[in-house]
């Protein structure tokens, strides 16, 4: 009787193990599936002309260069605003802020900012940047809108990275006659940098792939030329994909998948860079 029970227990354990492994595999499948699907369907569209040419024939032929350049501009523009502001906020929260009402309010705001639907950011950007500040539908307005959306990610990952640096480094540095800022700039930031960079890239990656926030603030349906200044509107990969998938009749399907593939590669490359930075830093870290 005992023996039977023992055997049963092993079988149950084995079954449980198999079930968990299967579930883990199931979570991986959609990712691999999506990438493989897009790769197969869109791979044939990729050519030098596709990557470096303008769309023509009502976007049913030609390339997607303006959308690629536009997404690059928007990502860089977002970085320009959100990175300094995000790191500064993280340094304040981790190194300077005392635990009081104001700090709690700031944290609450950041958490809530992360939960706002992206289309709401789009409307907010339209109201504030496009209309009130009169930036018009422009790269500037879209970048600022994306920055607000990206900020919570950058702030919270950077703050976490700063807090992970051992407290003893701060105490020792101060005891050797360093000011708080010297301690931060010479030791803490350097040690937290890989974590901060990872957060920045993950935030920007999300910004690069978003459609809703740029929909009303900076994205153009079609432009015959590249933008010349931050006050010009621009085409962008995610919006272009939306347009050619829903707004253009008789659209060749491989251009749609080709565009999706380019966007996917753009975002995944950033992801890989973030992963490499993180694992390298982890191997090099001395504490």
């Amino acid at each position, binding site marked *: 009787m005992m023996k039977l029970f023992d055997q049963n227990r092993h079988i149950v354990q084995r079954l449980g193990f198999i079930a968990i492994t299967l579930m883990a595999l199931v979570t991986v499948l959609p990712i691999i599936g999506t990438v493989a699907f897009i790769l197969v369907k869109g791979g044939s569209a990729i050519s030098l002309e596709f990557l470096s040419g303008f769309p023509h024939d009502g976007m049913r032929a030609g390339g997607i260069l303006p959308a690629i350049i536009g997404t690059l501009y928007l990502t860089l523009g977002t970085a320009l605003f959100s990175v300094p502001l995000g790191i500064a906020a993280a340094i304040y929260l981790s190194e300077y802020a005392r635990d009081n009402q104001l700090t709690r309010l700031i944290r609450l705001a950041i958490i809530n900012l992360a939960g706002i639907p992206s289309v709401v950011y789009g409307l907010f950007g339209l109201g504030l940047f496009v209309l009130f500040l009169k930036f018009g539908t422009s790269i500037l307005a879209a970048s600022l809108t994306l920055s607000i959306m990206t900020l919570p990610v950058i702030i919270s990952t950077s703050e976490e990275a700063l807090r992970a640096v*051992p407290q*003893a*480094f*701060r*105490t*020792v*540095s*101060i*005891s*050797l*006659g*360093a*000011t708080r800022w*010297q301690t931060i700039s*010479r*030791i803490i930031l*350097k*040690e937290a940098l890989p974590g901060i960079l990872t957060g920045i890239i993950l935030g920007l990656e999300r910004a690069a792939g978003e459609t809703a926030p740029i929909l009303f603030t900076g994205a153009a349906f079609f432009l015959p030329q590249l933008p010349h200044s931050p006050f010009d509107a621009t085409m962008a990969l995610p919006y272009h994909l939306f347009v050619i998938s829903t707004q253009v009749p008789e659209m060749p399907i491989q251009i749609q998948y080709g565009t999706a593939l380019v966007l996917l590669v753009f975002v995944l490359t950033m992801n890989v860079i973030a992963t490499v930075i993180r694992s390298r830093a982890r191997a090099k870290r*001395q*504490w």
Partner: protein
Amino acid sequence: MVDKIIIENLSLQYSDGTESLRNVSMGIPQNAVTVLFGPAGGGKSTLLRCLNRLNDLTEIKASSGRILIDGENILDPKTDVIALRRRVGMVFARPVTLPMSIRENIIYGLELAGEKRKSKLDEAVERSLKLSAIWDEVKDRLDESAIELSGGQQQRVCLARVIALQPQVILLDEPTSGLDPISTGKVEAALFELKKEYTIILVPHSVQQAARTADHAAFFLTGELIEYGDGKSLFTNPKQKKTEDYVMGRFG
């Protein structure tokens, strides 16, 4: 003997309500090792952290009293704490080398103080590492990461890092608590050399170490200074019952 430091009626209460020092008054003589000992929670570390104002980083509810170093009250809000910390160096219980090379660790404080001349910096590195009895072990690997060193070696690098700033006072908070007996011996021997030039205040990690190293000894119990006197006589012939009980190992 000149008193380098004079502590007058020092009391301190932390924000969490714990009282750490109660009306402590004592004079700390120059060029000697003064040992602060007693059971945990007695206020020894708190006193050390007052002497270089490291307690500024901690939430303090109330404090009163004065600490005079060379006649100047360092608890005065107008005190230049940066300059004070260069004058009063500190070695911690856990050896914490900064994540950089051995050389960079040593010159960290000097560079912050504005010293740029390479000859001066090199000189400081050699001098301080020699005084800390670690020069021979690291002289060929000054540019390697300090974190690769053993705990005992790291602690002597930490001591050298303090010495490099040429302070007047060196505070040591259980500097050998994590070290093996050989490393402990080396640190204690270094202290013996160092007291010729510096005023040393040591919180030892055992009564034995207190007895071995003390020129002067102060026994602390729950924030109060119970007995203070010459090292030799305090350990062999304590005047207070509490001191005697602790030294004899009857509690603590």
